[in-house]
């Protein structure tokens, strides 16, 4: 896995930053803080998996944030209506997947760059969420067991660890998704076609790859993962509002790039997505805990932004060094 050096650079950055923060920030190296970092990273992490898959095949999905909200609302409304939890979860994943599929079909039918198509559907789907929800937020008072399944306390792990560990079950869902999609990407024919479609679509088509089909299916996956994220967020907070997920698309792209996925496609990995979200989440926590004099805690985003650019430059530089060998 790490022999593929697209992931090596980001992994080293993650390691170095972790060591530095542990050494210089007193409160950083605690199970409480580490589990906090992981919990913050998992929802955006799942979205980033889908976004990474799409970026590797050369496309963007800016509508994932809206699909997260859609997933959350479908899940919440079905649960409140008394539907079986399994059905609620299934539909909360399937409906965003269908809208993701629509993104892909629009791309294929119109030939308009996915960046533009999904810039439009981002608003359209958000509008559908508005219509669907009537503009009202949902706050659930009960705590059905299914919520604990999706994003409850992961006591199986927490009990084994020292006091303060606060991992959630969303971690399991995230790791499962990472394993499944990394396998799909690197060990299946479909994955080979994703890399080819993103690396050189014409060459891929010349070898019989159905580039359109690859992209449409990847969009469906992205939508499904966004729906799953909506379920996880609702399961944690028992709340969903029309603005849920807003901005997630950009955070996901940033995390993907930090994790070594190239903007123009053909290069990347799902482990990179994991590293990217962990790195950014860790950075946020570290910067807040550091309490830097000239950076008030609420301006920590600037530090995060600077790191994103730095990480992207580093990855590009490493990539070019590799290619020259």
């Amino acid at each position, binding site marked *: 896995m790490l022999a593929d050096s697209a992931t090596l650079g980001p992994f080293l950055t993650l390691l170095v930053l972790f060591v530095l923060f542990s050494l210089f920030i007193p409160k950083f190296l605690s199970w409480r803080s580490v589990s906090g970092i992981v919990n913050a990273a998992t929802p955006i992490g799942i979205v980033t998996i889908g976004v990474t898959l799409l970026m590797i095949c050369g496309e963007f999905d800016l509508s994932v944030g809206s699909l997260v909200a859609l997933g959350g609302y479908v899940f919440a409304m079905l649960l409140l209506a008394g539907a079986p939890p399994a059905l609620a979860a299934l539909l909360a994943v399937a409906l965003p997947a269908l809208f993701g599929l629509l993104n892909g079909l629009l791309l294929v039918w119109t030939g308009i760059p996915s960046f533009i198509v999904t810039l439009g559907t981002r608003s359209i789907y958000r509008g559908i969420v508005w219509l669907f929800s009537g503009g009202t937020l949902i706050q659930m008072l009960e705590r059905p067991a299914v919520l604990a399944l999706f994003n409850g306390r992961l006591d199986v792990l927490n009990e084994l660890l020292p006091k303060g560990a606060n991992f959630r079950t969303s971690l399991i869902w995230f790791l499962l998704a990472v394993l499944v999609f990394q396998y799909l990407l690197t060990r*299946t024919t479909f994955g*080979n076609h994703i890399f*080819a479609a*993103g*690396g*050189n679509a014409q*060459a891929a088509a*010349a070898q019989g790859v159905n580039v359109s089909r690859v992209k449409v299916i990847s969009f469906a996956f992205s939508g499904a993962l966004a729906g799953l994220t909506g379920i996880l967020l609702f399961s944690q907070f028992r709340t969903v509002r029309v603005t849920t997920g807003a901005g997630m698309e950009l955070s996901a792209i940033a995390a993907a790039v930090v994790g070594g996925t190239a903007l123009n496609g053909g290069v990347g990995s799902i482990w990179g997505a994991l590293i990217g979200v962990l790195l950014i989440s860790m950075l946020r926590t570290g910067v807040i805990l550091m309490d830097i004099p000239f950076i008030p805690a609420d301006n920590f985003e600037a530090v995060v932004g600077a790191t994103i650019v730095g990480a992207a430059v580093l990855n590009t530089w490493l990539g070019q060094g590799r*290619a020259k060998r």
Partner: protein
Amino acid sequence: MGRTQDHSEPLVRMEAIVKRFGTITALDGVDFEVEYQQVHALLGDNGAGKSTLIKILTGVYPPTEGRIYFEGRHVRFSSPRDARALGIETVYQDLALVDTMSITRNFFLGREIVRRLGPIPWLDMRAMNERTRSALRDIGIEIRAPHEKVGSLSGGERQSIAIGRAVHFGAKLLILDEPTSALSVAETRKVLSYIENAKARGLSVIFITHNVRHVHMVADAYTILRHGRKVGTYYRGELSERDIADLITGERER
């Protein structure tokens, strides 16, 4: 080199091909034949109609008039896929390989070897790496590491992999579009040797070129087009380089 099999029909016969785009006539009644196990160069200045003729042969678009016969049978292509299915493979300089992927993944792109563990499929990388290495060795290409990214290879090496791939997967006719432009002298020599290897393996090769010297080195036959018409088909040794150049530009008529 003599033909190892005798066929009554040529491998490719394009008969009275006319291609019009609106009011422009790109090809005006061209006959073009390629024999079995023949290296055939297609020459002509820009706008002579070489690309158009090849695009018709590879199924990119149909001829306005005229017929194509492949292996003695009349064929009509509705897409490049049809031509590929018959064994007609095109190797374009930049459009043959995906630079960000390894040699092996490129080699088996679209034809991946898959094993199954119950319902779960997985790529058999070991078999593909092995097969890639041996297939390329058969054609005379030694690669350092099959998992190396194609982007780190030279232009000539990339061409060789694309050619090796076509040969290995059973192409009958290989079409190369300007295979030696942008290559060094040493690389050009290698690519020309792969063309000869392909021919030795039973394929025919059409290569489009501007380079008259390469024609002399490797082509059994060459056809010259000018302004959408065929000037003539000549055989190895018939004309000097100067004559060929003159025919291309029109200094000579025949």
